[in-house]
């Protein structure tokens, strides 16, 4: 016999489907929403619906956006000749927060993962090549995470972009700020040495 009225029980069931939320937390959240002051419940449900209705992918760069093309793609003050290729929207946001890049992006929507059945056709690689061909692009910067799959993806994409006659570069890998050589693993150290540059 359920302890709560059926409608409350339903809300708990829905909330517990969210990532990281168990049955207990879901019950706590549901009870809180029930008694929450003001119009929290109304505005919460309205913004969930709004996000679902309005947010989609930018048809150019595949960033999350509520307009198409997204605000980055339409920003004419940015460098239109450089595309930075990332795995996911989260990576794009991290680069934007750092404020170090003034070109535009291309979100692949993942990396090649043979064991998960993800091949080139399942990523936005074709679309990247079309952009490289249609727009006047000087350089494509690959900012893909250095996992095994990420590296395989970067090498694959680099080859295809180069075939179109466009320069490809890859972000440097090495010792993080505040890091310590003594505690850095051998592979990273080797990469850091390979990626050294003339000191300024």
């Amino acid at each position, binding site marked *: 016999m359920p302890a709560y009225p059926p409608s409350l029980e339903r809300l708990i069931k829905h909330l517990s489907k969210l990532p990281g939320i168990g049955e207990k937390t879901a019950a706590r959240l549901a009870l809180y929403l029930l008694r929450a002051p003001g119009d929290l419940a109304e505005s919460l449900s309205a913004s969930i619906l709004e996000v679902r209705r309005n947010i989609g992918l930018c048809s150019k760069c595949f960033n999350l956006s509520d307009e198409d093309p997204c605000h980055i793609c339409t920003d004419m003050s940015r460098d239109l000749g450089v595309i930075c290729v990332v795995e996911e929207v989260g990576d794009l946001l991290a680069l934007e927060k750092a404020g170090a890049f003034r070109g535009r992006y291309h979100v692949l929507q993942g990396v090649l993962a043979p064991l998960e059945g993800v091949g080139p056709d*399942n990523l936005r690689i074709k679309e990247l090549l079309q952009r490289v061909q249609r727009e006047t692009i000087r350089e494509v910067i690959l900012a893909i995470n250095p996992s095994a799959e990420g590296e*395989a993806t970067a090498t694959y994409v680099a080859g295809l972009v180069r075939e179109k006659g466009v320069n490809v570069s890859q972000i440097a890998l090495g010792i993080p700020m505040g890091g310590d050589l003594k505690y850095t*693993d051998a592979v990273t150290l080797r990469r850091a040495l390979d990626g050294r540059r003339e000191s300024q």
Partner: protein
Amino acid sequence: MVIRKNEAIILRSRDYSESDRLITFFTKSNGRLTGIAKGARRSKKRFVHSLEQLSYVTIAYADRSTSGLVRIDASELRSAFTGLRGDLARLGYASLSCEMVLEISPERQSNSALFSLLLQYLHQLEQGADPENTSLLFQVRMLSLSGYAPNFQTCVFCGQEAYSGKNWYVSIAEGGLLCTAHPGIHGTYPLSVGTVMLLRRAQQTSLTKLWRLRFDRKSREGCRVFLLDLIRHHLEKDLKSLKLLRQIGALNAAG
């Protein structure tokens, strides 16, 4: 709780929770195991890329029972096979073999010959061996080492020796060769006598000599589909890695 240290190849590495990863690995002396690496997502330091798929490692794990998940305590990289990352076809074939071993090997059943085969195969691929040829040799040998070797010696119906006659058929349902005297058997694959001999050698020769065997273009066409169908028949499922190989055109004729 038993603490073990073992040579292993990482077959699959997946996110498990906010901070943990679920790792399936094939050990030299204890077969296939799955375990949780606590904190492997967040504190990358503890397992610095020694738990990525295809890595050859020395792994330490705590095992409390004879079934279920183990707890991975440490992993030290012996080889990451980084040479495979630069070539999608090679990476695809390497993943295909890992997936085959993952699916065909029973949990916790030691098979050190299969371990050596997989390890040598990954070395061969990294060192530039023809990926499809190497993969076909791997598949034939893996089937033998897993107890699924088809009979490539004699006709399963009349016992005719395989080195006589010109054309042969092989049947998955009958588990081996058929000579031309038995027409009308359903679901057979034609193989030339040369291909049959090659498959036999791939089953029997020593592991070091295995990689010298060569499938020519014609025998590849015959074996490619047959071996994949045979493996699918035993696993009772499709292999996901084939999708990428098909997309990059590495498996043109395969079904």
